[in-house]
């Protein structure tokens, strides 16, 4: 009996200590409430080429921030979901972030379709969303998009840049070729819309599926039209395929311009030499070494490039940059006004010349994108790497 009593007392003390430790330690560790940021990227599925680097960048950046003691003492906590490039999953993920995780701000999704699928959700829940997708519809009409921002450049910006460039080269007869998915479609819209305004004559408007194995038919048709230049708009394997077929068909005398989706050295490698002489508009983040030292973006870009490539041993794409910008904006806002969705929204809307990876952002009540065509540089592939196009 006494033994039992002893044992009992021992156990009790032990439990008490454990409880004490368990309950005190975490509070010591994180003195202040952590700040949550909701993240939805297409880490797997069709758009994983975008989502993967975005996820990596976001996690890398979050680590950095927390190493530096978080957001003035508040630990930054990413609540990250993979929408698997699927709209239904994306909607559910965002609803979960708002309802269950109660995040004050969300970054992502990676692609336009999924973003548009959650726009109304965020608007009504009054939670700011900083999208990493390009479609202009995401932030217009701005009165219906009060709570929505985006850091990816609008397709109109890069189209304008491309047409300008072609006109400067004295090219007016142009053929376009777009992939039949969200990315290709919104690019196509802008290409068709801006051509007449800028005095470009479109001779062909070809399309292909995101998983097509061969594009020679489309290219041959374009060749038949006698266009001077070809603009291809896609991401993923088809943009490499387009370059290879263009080379194989001996069409190199026709100027080939890729969309900004081509923005990864990996694509040059994949095209295996065929990409020589291909033009494309790039955000400066992809060409750090080509950016003049006095340019405001120089530093941030260099830092990000070194960090990312040092860590993941892979050339970085524009998409990682979008993640960097959106998260950085969110964090900045949290630091400035705390975890209050409405305040965050107002802060973002009035943020001027934020120096990011995608460019220098100037948000305003009428513009929730904040970039301009000048955030693109026209570059050409020379000896397997980028060079500024004259």
């Amino acid at each position, binding site marked *: 009996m006494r033994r039992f009593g002893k044992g009992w007392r021992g156990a009790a003390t032990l439990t008490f200590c454990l409880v004490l430790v368990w309950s005190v330690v975490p509070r010591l560790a994180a003195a202040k409430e952590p700040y949550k940021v909701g993240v939805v990227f297409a880490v797997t599925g069709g758009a994983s080429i975008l989502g993967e680097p975005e996820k990596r960048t976001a996690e890398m950046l979050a680590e950095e921030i927390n190493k530096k003691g978080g957001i003035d003492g508040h630990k930054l906590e990413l609540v990250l979901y993979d929408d698997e490039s699927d709209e239904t999953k994306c909607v559910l993920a965002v609803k979960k972030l708002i309802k269950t995780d109660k995040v004050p701000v969300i970054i992502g999704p990676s692609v336009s379709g999924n973003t548009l699928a959650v726009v109304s959700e965020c608007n009504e829940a009054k939670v700011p969303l900083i999208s990493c997708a390009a479609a202009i519809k995401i932030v217009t009409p701005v009165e219906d998009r009060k709570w929505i921002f985006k850091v990816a450049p609008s397709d109109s910006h890069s189209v304008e840049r491309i047409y300008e460039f072609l006109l400067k080269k004295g090219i007016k007869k142009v053929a376009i070729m777009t992939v039949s998915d969200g990315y290709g479609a919104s690019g196509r819209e802008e290409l068709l819309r801006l051509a007449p305004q800028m005095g470009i004559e479109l001779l062909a408007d070809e399309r*292909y599926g995101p*998983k097509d194995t*061969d594009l020679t038919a*489309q290219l041959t048709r374009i060749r*038949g039209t*006698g266009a001077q230049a070809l603009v291809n708009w896609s991401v993923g*394997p088809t943009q490499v395929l387009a370059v290879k077929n263009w080379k194989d068909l001996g069409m190199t005398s026709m100027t080939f311009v890729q969309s900004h989706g081509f923005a990864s050295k990996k694509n040059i490698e*994949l095209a295996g*030499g065929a990409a020589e002489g291909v033009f494309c508009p790039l955000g400066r983040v992809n060409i750090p070494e080509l950016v003049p030292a006095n340019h405001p973006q120089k530093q941030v870009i260099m830092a990000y490039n070194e960090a990312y490539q040092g860590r993941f041993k892979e050339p970085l794409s524009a998409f990682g940059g979008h993640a960097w910008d959106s998260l950085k904006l969110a964090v900045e806002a949290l630091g400035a006004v705390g975890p209050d969705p409405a305040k965050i929204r107002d802060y973002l809307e009035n943020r001027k010349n934020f120096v990011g990876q995608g460019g220098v952002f100037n948000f305003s009540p009428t513009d929730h994108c904040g970039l301009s065509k000048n955030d693109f540089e026209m570059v050409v592939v020379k000896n397997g790497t980028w060079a500024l196009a004259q």
Partner: protein
Amino acid sequence: MEKLSLGGQLVQYLFTGVTVGSVYGMVALGFNIIYNVTEMINFAQGEFVMLGGLMMVVCAKFLPLPMAFVLTVAIVTAVGVLMERFTINPLKNASVLTLIIVTIAVSILLKGIAMFIWGKDPYVMQPFSGTKPIHLFGAAVQTQILWVLGISAVVVVLLTLFFRKTRYGKAMLACADNLEAARLVGIKVKFMVLLSFALSAAIGAAAGAVITPISLMEYDRGALLGLKGFGAAVLGGLGSFYGAVAAGLILGIVESLCAGLISSGYKDAVGLLVLLLVLFVRPSGLFGSVEASKIKKF
């Protein structure tokens, strides 16, 4: 730049069509071999092609092409055999629909595994004999196209020999004819099923290996190739080998002509439309026999 004459264009379309078509044809052959023995459609067929392509990329890195090719086919064949052993073989008198779902599940698994081994980015591979295209009738033809055509021709010939000459080949044809009868005359049907999976995996691998230099290859390419192959198999009439090849070519040519002359956006739709119309007129495909399809379970 110089315009290309319509004639030249047509030739170009035909070459494209024939190339893509012969790949569809090979996938369709794979479907047929298994269908004949088991009366089921193996929806993982496309994944065999994907594996073949990615394996080839790897093997070609440290082996001369012919050996790389052989090794690739061997490995994928092994995968096919394993699949049969662990998923099809254990199933006792399962409904055909169940079998189909099983193969779909397997294709999901293979896709997932490939994603972990190779990641999500596409892989390229140098054409077997140089990137310099040859010019025929004003059309530029990648040398790899000739490889694709050659290999698929070889596959067809070998298959014919296998089914005409070898004991196993004849046995498999017997199964195709009438499973019950085959069992009664003492053919080990179980083994034939295994063999059929091995064969179609091998063919799939070969197709993947030769097409990759043209089309690139990534982990989720299999599904579409599988779909097109299935289409070709059905169009040709399930179970008919020549039907499969012919239908594959027809599908490929229709697609590329449509892409070139009508609308590139609708090329897949037109291919399928042709398929549907044919089915409505000939419910057992171009070369399939109605009587035969009646006795089949599913």
